[in-house]
C-alpha cells in the first residue's frame, strides 16, 4: 500500500513486499519507456504478446518448432503500428513510441476482453469523436 499507484515495483521492493504484490504482471513494461522504432530491447517481445492479447497485433502463437520468429525484441513496423492504434484508442498522442503516458496506460489493471476483436476496432470510432469534442 505504500507504493503510489501506476508506479511499478522498484527492484528492491521484492525484498520487502509480500510476494503476491511484488511484481504485477505488466510492471516490467515500465522498463521499456522511451523505446521507439529501430530499437532492440529485451522485453519488447512480451509487449508484443500483450498487444496481441488485446487485439492490436496478430501473429501465430508458435511455429512448428515451438518458437515464433515474429516475436522478437525488435521495435519493428508492426509494433509501431500497434502502439499507434493503442494510443488512438486511449486518446493518447499517436507517436508510435513508448512514451511515458503510453506505458503508464499499458500497465494499468484492465478488463481481459480485447479492445479489437477479429481485426475490427470500433473503440475509437465514436469515442474519439467525443474526446475531440471535449478537447475543443
Amino acid at each position, binding site marked *: 500500500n505504500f507504493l503510489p499507484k501506476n508506479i511499478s515495483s522498484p527492484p528492491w521492493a521484492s525484498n520487502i513486499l509480500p510476494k503476491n504484490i511484488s511484481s504485477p504482471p505488466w510492471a516490467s513494461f515500465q522498463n521499456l519507456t522511451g523505446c521507439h522504432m529501430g530499437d532492440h530491447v529485451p522485453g519488447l517481445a512480451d509487449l508484443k504478446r500483450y498487444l496481441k492479447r488485446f487485439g492490436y497485433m496478430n501473429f501465430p502463437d508458435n511455429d512448428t518448432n515451438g518458437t515464433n520468429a515474429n516475436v522478437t525484441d525488435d521495435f519493428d513496423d508492426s509494433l509501431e503500428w500497434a502502439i499507434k492504434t493503442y494510443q488512438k484508442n486511449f486518446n493518447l498522442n499517436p507517436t508510435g513510441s513508448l512514451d511515458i503516458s503510453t506505458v503508464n496506460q499499458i500497465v494499468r*489493471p484492465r*478488463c481481459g476482453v480485447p479492445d479489437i476483436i*477479429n481485426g475490427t476496432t470500433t473503440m475509437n470510432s*465514436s469515442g*474519439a469523436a467525443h474526446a475531440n469534442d471535449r478537447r475543443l
Partner: protein
Amino acid sequence: YSYFPGSPSWPSNKRQLTYAISPADRISADDATLRSIFARAFERWSNVTQLTFVEAAEYSAADIKIGFYSGDHGDGEPFDGVLGTLAHAFSPTSGRFHLDAAETWAADGNLPSAGEIDLESVAVHEIGHLLGLGHSSVEEAIMFPTISSGTRRVELAADDVTGIQLLYGANPNYNASSSSSNSAQEEKGGAA
C-alpha cells in the same frame, strides 16, 4: 461506445435476465454484501434500459453466471494473479462472467483502499459486455477498459447509456437530464 462484431444482444423476447454467483467459486466476503454489490451493479443498467435483472434461485439455471477463478479456469483466458487482468465477460448470450480471485477486491461496500480493486466498478463494466457493449475510448465511460486500484467508477456515462439504449431501448422512467450519467467520474478511495 462500441459493440462486439455482429452486434450480438439478448433476444427481444427476453427482457428479464437472471443471474447467480457460483456457490463454489467465490471469494471470502460477506454473502449479503457481495449479493448487494452485484444487485446494485445490475440495477445501474436496468435503470436506463428496458431490461430487468433478478437473482436466480439456482446457479445452473441462471442466464448470467458469475464466478471468481484463479489462473487457468478452462475458458482459454487464464487469469494472471494480482493486478493485470481483473475480469472478463462474454458477449450475449453466453452469460459467463469471470473475476480474478487473486485480486484484493474491495467487496465490503466501502471505497477501495490503495491496492484494492473496487468490485462494483468492475461488475458494472463486465455487465456491459454481457449485454453486448465493447470497449469505449471515453475515459469517463464505464466501458473504458482500464481502472486504477484504489478508485471507484460506477456511474454510467452518457456514452454508455447511448450505446446500451440503442440495443435495448430506454427505460420509460429514465430521465437523462436528472441523471448523473452525464458527469460520471472516477472516485479515489484511500490515498496511495
